[in-house]
């Protein structure tokens, strides 16, 4: 409760500073829209903003889902096969070093203007934190625990299912939390490279058309989206691994 109050206070301070900066004569209205102008943009352009936000949200959720499935499968594969791990780990890190901004137009060329390139970019950006965290979680299992399972006669897959996957769940959620915040950035990049709808495109167009309040409104929605996804991932973790919090608080 106290934490929420402090966050609200800090937010209010930031808003105040923003309003004050925007009210200065030396600050161009086209550079910085005031909070009240942004609020008006929300009112006037609500359906426009909402329609575009929905497009972006779909890209983000589907892209995340692809990253979760492929990332988890890839991590399990690397965990089970040492050869795959040795071969693929450098490539995995390499995939993260690719500047997405440069890649986005190529994806658009490859997948056309539809949702395809956005999903590819969101998935690519989210794949890394999920894969790395799941792999770390799987490998962090106590060697003695594995020995015990072996002594009970458990095979590799049985041990994976009974012990390793559940213990990797908290790590998976750590990865998901990171992925959920960067996923929105991925969708925006994807839309910048070429799109006919979406908040990223709206913000880009708004910038070109000097509709600064609308740009800010779009940014606010994108931020709220990322924060909400993060909060959802955190909530899901609490529901899925209640034991983890108990252990941590001991």
């Amino acid at each position: 409760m106290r934490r929420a109050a402090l966050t609200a206070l800090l937010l209010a301070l930031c808003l105040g500073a923003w309003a004050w900066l925007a009210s200065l004569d030396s600050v161009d209205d086209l550079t910085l829209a005031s909070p009240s102008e942004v609020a008006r943009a929300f009112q006037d352009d609500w359906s426009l903003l909402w329609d575009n936000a929905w497009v972006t949200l779909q890209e983000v959720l589907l892209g995340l889902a692809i990253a979760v499935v492929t990332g988890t499968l890839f991590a399990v594969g690397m965990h089970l096969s040492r050869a795959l791990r040795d071969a693929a780990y450098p490539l995995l890190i390499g995939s993260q070093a690719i500047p997405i901004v440069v890649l986005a137009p190529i994806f658009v060329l490859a997948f056309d203007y539809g949702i395809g390139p956005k999903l590819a970019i969101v998935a690519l950006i989210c794949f890394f934190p999920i894969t790395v965290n799941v792999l770390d979680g799987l490998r962090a299992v106590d060697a003695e625990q594995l020995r015990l399972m072996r002594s009970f006669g458990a095979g590799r897959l049985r041990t994976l299912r009974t012990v390793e996957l559940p213990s990797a769940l908290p790590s998976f959620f750590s990865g998901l939390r990171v992925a959920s915040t960067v996923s929105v950035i991925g969708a925006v990049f994807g839309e910048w490279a070429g799109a006919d709808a979406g908040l990223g495109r709206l913000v880009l167009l708004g910038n070109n058309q000097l509709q600064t309040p609308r740009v800010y409104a779009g940014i606010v929605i994108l931020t709220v989206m990322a924060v909400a996804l993060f909060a959802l991932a955190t909530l899901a973790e609490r529901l899925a691994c209640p034991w983890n919090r108990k252990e941590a608080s001991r």
Partner: protein
Amino acid sequence: MVDAPPPGPATRPVAGLALTGVARRYRGRRGSTVTALEALDLRVEPGAVVGVVGPSGCGKSTLLELLAGLQEPDAGTVEVGDGGPTPAAARLAACALMPQRDLLLPWRDALGNAAVALEAQGVGGREARRRARPLFERFGLAEFERARPAELSGGMRQRVAFVRTLLPGRPVLLLDEPFAALDAITRAEMQQWLADALAAEPRTVVLVTHDVEEAVFLADRVAVLAPRPGRVVAELEVPGSRPRDRRAAVTDPELARLRARALEALG
């Protein structure tokens, strides 16, 4: 299909153990060879409890892993039951290992944790829980079936771990310093509990411990291991029958003499 009766003394085959001239070496750093065990002989009669005591690094854990079929000796033979040297897979199927730490899975309740031992062999979760339940009742754990490990005391967790070890109904129990992580009072309580439990569920037991008193209290015979390389330097028969009473055992002069001899053998 007729349900298998719960494991009990009458239905379980008893197996003895024999290690003959066993050696185990590891490759150490910089190409040197570390000899964990050398020319080790140890025999455990069916249904007997043998306490193995020794200082750290005397190869106690290696000894248990050899028996459990998790390792192969570099020389000598390991027999579990009759019929000569036993292949690793058969040893694995005959022995149940109880590690020092309880290694309970925090997301499973107590009953589910014990059931892991059966699920490992492909028994379904529900059926495994059903078969674990009678043991929980027998060992006074019935009311803790649904408790998570985090809600249990160290002693209770170790009890659950022991039931997990018993559950597959294997004739040989290998206990690896089962109470070393507990505080002294809980440890004493658990030793009495284990003594009574082994009387109710007789098995062939190898109990590895660094605690001479624990070995003498729980075992029929105490084998003293010396380190580098690990080998048996003394075997002492413990007089009297099990289960002993802890309070009586502490003051029994005969057992006190035996403890002194074991400590002397430890050097």
